[in-house]
């Protein structure tokens, strides 16, 4: 399986570290919403098909990447830098962070 890093180009999966399901929404650190925390920790879509994932190019440029991987074929249909993506950018803005 190859992941085409936006910086480094196509690299073997051995250079990457899986950082988890990219669909999760982490609650605010101070949140006491147990349902939200339960969903964040345990609930997964487990699709048979395209799946949003976070990977780190740990054996290369070390960037965190937002990857869409097909769980049936391992085809990687999309790779983008996780930094600055709309989800985390919006969350940081809401938290008043840069």
């Amino acid at each position, binding site marked *: 399986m190859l992941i085409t890093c*936006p*910086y*480094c*180009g196509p*690299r*073997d999966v051995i*250079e990457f570290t899986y950082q988890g399901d990219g669909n999760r929404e982490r609650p605010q650190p101070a949140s006491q919403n147990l349902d939200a925390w339960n969903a964040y920790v345990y609930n997964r879509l487990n699709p048979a098909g395209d799946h949003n994932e976070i990977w780190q190019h740990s*054996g*290369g*440029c*070390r*960037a965190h990447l937002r990857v869409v991987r097909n769980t049936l074929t391992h085809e990687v249909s999309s790779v983008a*830098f996780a*930094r*600055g993506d709309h989800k985390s950018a919006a969350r940081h803005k809401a938290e008043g962070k840069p």
Partner: protein
Amino acid sequence: MVERQSPLEPAPLEPELRTGSHGDFEHGIDVILSEIKPGSILQLAAWPGQEKELIAGIRTVTGLALPDGAGAGSTDGVRSVFGFAPGKFTVVDEAEGLVSGFAGVVTPAIGTVTDLSHGRTAIRIAGPKAEWVLAKFFAIDFALPAFPVGAGRSTMHHDVFAQIQRTGADQFDIYVFRSFARSFWKALCHASEEVGYEVQ
């Protein structure tokens, strides 16, 4: 600076660390291995949006212009620079003390300068079969059009992280963690045996 000791000093039972010809060299020497011992190995990182300012600072201090593009770099034989990650660059100088040149140029508002001179070992592999030996190690394209002179790549060999800069048509400088340098050097030697190699 504290005097540096090479991690590649020869030991009695380790012939591959000694200068001279090794392996199948009766048919010629196709690979030359050497430790290049640069005095300064720095890592520079720009804060988001500050990459242009950092690149300008590198040019001010080293005189080296960075071409556009991921992994692009340049070398003048004394100083070298290449991108190894978004907004991050390795800068190398034969002389010690390059880090002090960046003080006041790469300000805290632009980014960071980290001195890795004692933490990395630089190994040069050259010769007509250098590309061929490295292709056995790393699953990246070493052909000249895909990996031009001056460019850098971050990759790894059996979990040994390596930054590689092409410093000539058949010459590459490989930066590895100092603690891995000895075993990595030996692996390079074993891989070069069948084409004949010389340690300089």
